[in-house]
């Protein structure tokens, strides 16, 4: 970087120039919003979305919180083949397989935990699944916890989630993490 010249080192000139730029944007936006409010079309000012009351529309391809797809009887479609666990680059999926009572279905997960504190939302688990049993289409992006343990989502939590509606709005409430449940 070249050394600052005198004008830059003097400080005040540059500060005033900066304030001028901010003020120019402010008045331009105020003018445009006012013009819009008075019914003039074709002009748009800068937009602030009033999150969380207002939300941007999400792309249907968005990778949001995982869910486990259910069979018709409510049991998980997952057959505990460990493909997602194997492909997961963050090693955040923990599956323990169990014998399924029905010999036509070989395996069923006894445990299926995702450690969202580790997850990198790459979506490889969805790609790898041969049964379409895991999807990232809940539209839920806001999940937080006071502890690392609270970021571990269990099979039951993941099974209870519904896919987002057509506009991408979540249909399931955000699951309460383990460390915030009574």
């Amino acid at each position, binding site marked *: 970087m070249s050394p600052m010249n005198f004008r830059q080192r003097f400080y005040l000139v540059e500060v005033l120039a900066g304030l001028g730029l901010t003020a120019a944007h402010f008045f331009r936006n105020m003018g445009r919003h006012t013009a819009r409010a008075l019914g003039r079309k074709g002009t748009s000012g800068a937009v602030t979305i009033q999150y969380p009351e207002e939300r941007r529309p999400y792309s249907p391809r968005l990778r949001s919180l995982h869910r486990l797809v259910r069979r018709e009887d409510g049991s998980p479609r997952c*057959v*505990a*083949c*460990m*493909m997602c*666990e*194997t492909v997961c680059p963050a090693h955040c999926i*923990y599956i*323990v*397989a*169990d*014998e399924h009572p029905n*010999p*036509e279905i*070989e*395996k069923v997960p006894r*445990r299926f935990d995702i450690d969202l504190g580790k997850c990198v939302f790459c979506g490889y688990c969805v790609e790898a699944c*041969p*049964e379409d049993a895991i999807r990232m289409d809940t539209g839920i992006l806001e999940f937080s916890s006071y502890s690392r343990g609270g970021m571990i989502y269990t099979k039951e939590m993941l099974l209870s989630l519904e896919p987002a509606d057509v506009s991408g709005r979540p249909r399931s409430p955000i699951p309460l993490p383990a460390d915030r449940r009574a």
Partner: protein
Amino acid sequence: MAKLTVNGKEVEVPAGTNLIEAARAAGVEVPHYCYHPGLSIAGQCRLCMVDIEKTPRPTIACNTVAADGMVVNTETDRVRETRKSIMEFHLINHPLDCPVCDQAGECWLQIYYMKHGLYDPRMKDEKVHKPKAVPLGPHVILDAERCILCSRCVRFCDEITATGELGIFERGDHSEIGLFPGRELDNKYSANVVDICPVGALTDRDFRFQVRVWYLDTAKSICPGCARGCNIEVHVNRRRPHHAEGRRVARLKPRFNAEVNKWWICDAGRYGFGFVDAPDRLLTPAQREGGSSTDVTWELGIAAVAGALRRLPPEQLGVIASPKMANEDLFALRRLLDLHGISQAAGRVPTRVPGDEDDFLIRADKNPNSLGAELMGFGGDARTVLEAARARRLKFLWVFGHDLLASALSERDVLEAFRAVETVVFTGSNANWTSAHAHWVLPAAAWAEREGTYTNFEGRVQRFRTAIEPLGQALAEWEIVGRVMASLGQTLSATRAEHLFRQLVEAVPAFAGLSYPLLGDTGSPLAAAGAAGRPGAGAPPSEATSSSC
């Protein structure tokens, strides 16, 4: 001898060799399912087709004997086309349930499809359905849909165990492997059919769903289950500790050794690894005072042993070593005893019931290193040491591994001996009655957690290697002995088991000329197998080893 050409390379093989083995000698792999070098030839799978010059069509390699001047080609277009068609034929009714199949990752259908198949499936009809998840016996479970009817398992039960439980029933594409009525696959070698099954039809009930095979690491090892010393591979799961409830050793698989176990191991050995991850493992040195036991540091535990050695005259010290210890451990212990002139040392504890034995692999002596112990002067009967203790001639007793109360020794005698001794030290991997009654417990690493050598009943010295880290603070027995020596100002001058083996080779004539590189993967016989051991060891040979040598 027959001289033939395989893929342009000339090889000479003994007369009677088939073309699969002849090609192997030339470094060429001929794909096959039904052929197994340990079983008779069935010619069932038709995959091992090769072209032989001057024959009109491809021929199966397994049932063709190599002849002088034969020109064999395994990679002609015709052979490749044939293989591809046969792969397609084998997979017509295969359920392709690889993701849920335990064999996935080590399945020869997967391997050969990727190497020789790669066709687009043309099967449009409903596949033939057959029974799934059928337990055949205590160790083996059958999925008849995955079976390609190579008949290896049937031949194993007919030819190796001669028990004949299995057969092929029905005809055509309804053929399936099954048990003869009223039979169960429960012979002593039953789980070998899982190893030889090239597909996921026969899988291991103990291993079922525990760990996916691609998570496993392997180490070459020796089965510690009996004096045979079968060569095995220890498969351990270090990468996914949440699988199999945290048990690290997932399974044992036989490893080929023409001189010892060929391709097989017995079921008792195969499933005898549970103690490594058992909840009763000893993890920290401990001291028992009154009725309660407290964990202590290694320094304190070592000081207890070293203190006794320093304080007491040698005739008041006794040691009961174990024939389950490696040669290296026993040699380190022998050096310690010789330095202090301790003569009250034994290694053999009589068992309550004699071990089972057969004329194939299983030996009655359930210790992997009885001959090694004997050569190192630990062949003596523990009863003499315990008698000395009962006569109040011993003040210190160091017991390795044995559970004296689970043995044929009388409970009253052992208890009396323990009460008469001032300090009893126990070194072993798992808790037992002896460890519960010892004043000091020094935890030892299990065989899979360290390396060493065993000498089998035929005098074959074989290496076993480290598969996993020791649990807790456990140390190999030779390391414990080394620490005791260090605190007495003596040095063991060994930081690896191999260093001790070099010293052992120098000191014990029977081991002369051996070294770790020489032992390699399959071991090497002692210079004079079964010959008299260490001069002055003066121990009577144990029953198990003397009867077999």
